[in-house]
Structure formats: structure tokens, C-alpha cells
């Protein structure tokens, strides 16, 4: 997906937290060099989907802005759970291999 490099882009990159491309450029100007750095400054990637939707886009914006390859941009550290889980799920002890509904 092509992402425009217009500086005043109001295009929303992180849908969960409604972070625009312009805010991401601002974060890079503020010193962000990694996906986590953008996240900490803008909240992009902190929402419900935890960066599943915007992570690659942010990485791409960083790459193009910093004139690097996407693979040279450090992605954020994924943390459990892989999807939102009701807190009650964590109350019981589970043996490895058991399925979580």
C-alpha cells in the first residue's frame, strides 16, 4: 500500500488511536527512529489491535523518511496476549497445551 509523503497528510495510519501520518512525521522529527519510538510519542500501536494494522505502515513511513530499508527499522516488541483476552481467563492456572477459549 502506497503511503503519501505529503507533510500535511491527515491520513489515519493507526485506526485504533486515530493517529495521522502527520503526527507520525512529527514523532520522527521529535527523534523517533523505531516503531516503538513512534508508538511512545503518538500512541500508534497502543490501541486494541496492538499495532497489527498499523505496525507495518509505521515501519514503512520510518523507512522512507529515514532513507532506510524497512528491514533496517526495528519493529516493536510483541507482547502477550496475541489478541484481547478477558481478564477472567488469566485467573486460572493452565497447563501447557491446553486450549484457551
Amino acid at each position, binding site marked *: 500500500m502506497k503511503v503519501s509523503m505529503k507533510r500535511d497528510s491527515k491520513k489515519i495510519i493507526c485506526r485504533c*488511536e486515530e493517529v495521522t501520518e502527520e503526527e507520525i512525521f512529527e514523532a520522527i522529527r*521529535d*527523534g*523517533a*527512529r*523505531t516503531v*516503538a*519510538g513512534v508508538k*511512545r*510519542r503518538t*500512541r500508534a500501536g*497502543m*490501541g*486494541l489491535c*496492538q499495532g497489527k494494522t498499523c505496525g507495518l505502515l509505521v515501519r514503512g513511513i520510518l523507512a522512507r523518511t529515514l532513507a532506510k530499508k524497512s528491514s533496517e527499522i526495528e519493529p516493536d*516488541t*510483541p*507482547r*502477550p*496476549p*496475541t*489478541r*484481547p*483476552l*478477558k*481478564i*477472567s481467563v*488469566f*485467573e486460572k*492456572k*493452565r497447563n*501447557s*497445551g*491446553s*486450549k*484457551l477459549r
Partner: protein
Amino acid sequence: MRSRTSPEAIVIGGGIIGAFISFYLAREGVKTLLLDRGDFAAETSASCEGGITIHNKTIGKDMDLAQESLRLYRGLSRELGGEIEYRRVGGMMIAETEEEADRLKERVKAQAHLGIRLKWLDQKEALEEEPCLAQDISGASFCEVEAQINPMAATFALVRNARERGLLTSPFSKVTGIECKNGKVVAVRIGSRRILTRLAMNAAGVWASDIARMVRIEVPIIPRRGMLVVSEPIPPLVRHFLTEASYLTLKLSPKEMERSRSERVRKGVGFVIEQTQAGTLVLGSSRQFAGYTNSVEGSVVRHIIRRGVRFIPSLRKISAIRLYSGLRPYTPDNLPFIGQTEVEGFLMAAGQEGSGITLAPITGKLVSEIVTGNNPTIPVGRFLLSRFTSSLLKKSFFSGCSKMPRCKAPEILRNEAYLGVRRNDEG
């Protein structure tokens, strides 16, 4: 760095402590360079609760420090309140048993003269003040002046503000050495680069002892790991910054903690919760000496969550979206190291452990006062590194506490629900 002249001061560590030091120094017109081995607000300040707590402090020890710090936050909030998300939510310590209630009531009495709007709430009053709480709690102490901020946002806002007043910054610049001559700091090295300066501030928190070793000083700071659970954003549920009464024991007496029969207590789990401006709940907490690994341990998370639903039953229906942990800088006497050391120009500003957010402003202020020669807001004698004589340092610092183990693969990551998550155990 484009500047031709050397900085008067170099702050090592770009978390909230380093940010506050830089903020105050910039205000005083001191030419400062802020360094971090990584990005700013990347470590402890990005993995902690945002509470500014006063009534859990100890009179004669850190109470005055905390009160002054809160005053500074209030003053700042006029200028930067929105950016740091400063909110005066008030703080409650919740008693589960009659015994805890009695102890909290004593604390309220003992602190009555401090003017911190502290009062005891019985069960009925506590539930009126915080309706989400479980019906069977014994009561709570309520301190209206306590507040909350967003530590990450605050760090960035302070640095931005200081930059406007001339602060130089260089993230992703690991300090590899500090040069001294005749017992005085003369330069800081970043790889092959050498930056001349006469003042180096050690705000490296969890890694402060590594920095201090560069000037041949032993600083007894070791990492203490705490885990957090973040929820999906929800409508307003938690009105105040909440902690349970036994949190104090866990923070202050690790030896007592480690000898407990209760697994929850051994893992240092004590209920803490806040609702952020974004609407998410940040639930904690735990305290473990686990070296420098910041991985997530399943059993600890389980205890945190069980403790959470014990105090706020409706938590069960809310979803968790992220589990992570952060390292905090622990000192043997639960007091930070602020101020001069035997190396002239090398100042300490680290070791606030779980009170980093609360004590950040006063730390920054005191350091800037030392640098400019102004009268210190609070005499720093109590916080000097020299309070640990060399004999105390030689005595095994870790006696009574378990040795720092290599972290085992977190059991939580073996569960099927977490398949596909890339393991990142190596802190």
C-alpha cells in the same frame, strides 16, 4: 552535534529523571546535553504506573522529598499540565483486613499535620468514593492531593520544552567511558567521540551502577522487575489511583516478602491500578529480583490479576490487551542517590525504585540547584551516596534476597493462545 562549544553539563539517561534534570538546567540557562543509549523514555519510564503518591511515604525519610516534588508538579501543571496529562485524581490505600485498617488509621493520624488532605474512609465511605471496589473491603485512606501523569508523555514534553531553551539531545548514544583527571570529570566518551565537560549527571536508573563504574564508584542499585497488565480502553471506571495496604510491606521489606508462605507475597504482588487519560486500565504490581530480563512470567501475571479482581470484581469482564514488565532501580535503603560523589563533577540522580514518577521533579530541581549553587530545596545530605560507607558496600548487598536467576521461558508463552508471538526474553 552541531554546537562548537562543549556542554557545561551532560545528563546520562533520558527517562523521566534525566528529562526533569534537563528541564530545570535549561531553565537556568545551563548548556546541557542529554544522552541515552537508546531512545528517550524507552525503559523504566515507559513501563510503569503514573501515580504521584505521598501518603505511602515515610516521615523523616522520603516524605519531604515527595511533598516538594508534588508542589513542583502542581507548579508545572499550569504550563505543561495538558502535555504531561497531569490529573489530580486523589489516591487511596485500601485495607483488606481490620489489622490493615488499624495501621492505615494510625498512618492518617500520624500524617494529619502534613496538610496533604488525608482522611480515613470507612467501608461505606470508601465504596461511595470508589464504587468499583469490592463490597467487603475494610476501608481506605484517601489522599486528595495525590495525582497521576503519563510518564512517557511527560518525558517527551519536558525534553521538547527544554530543547526550546537550548537543551542539546543525542539519543542512541551509548556512554562508553567517563574521563577523570585529578579526581574531576573532564570528558564523557561515546564510542570514539569525546565530549569535554566538567559535569556528568548519572540518571541512568537501573543501569546507574554501570555508569558509576566508569569513574570507579560502586553504586548499590540493582534492577527490580515489576509486571503490568493493560486493558482495552473503557468508559470511566476507576476514579482514583488505587493501591492495597500491603503494597507498602512489599516495597519496603523484600526479606520479609521472600520468606512468606503465600506465593503471591513471595512474588511481590500488590494491587495497584490506575485509569489513564486514554481510558485504559494499568493494573499491577509485582516486585522481583530477576536480573536485567524484562520478560513476563505467567504465574506473576496470574497473581496480579487475581489480586485485581479481588479488589475490583468487574475487571473480569474487561479485556487485557498487553502484558509487559519494567525494571526499577532498587537501593538497599529505599532512598535514591541524589547529589555529589567523591568524584568532583559526577553527580548521582538514580535509585528512586517504585517512586520514580513521584520523585522526578524534586530530583531534577535538586540537581540543578547543586549545579547553579542555589540553596537546595531540601538538604541533600540524606541522599548522598556517601551514606553507604565502604564497609556497608562490602557487606553482601544481596544477603537475604534470592540471587538473580536467569529467567526461565515464561510459561505464559507456551499457551496456544500465544502462538505466533515472537519470543523476546532477552530483556
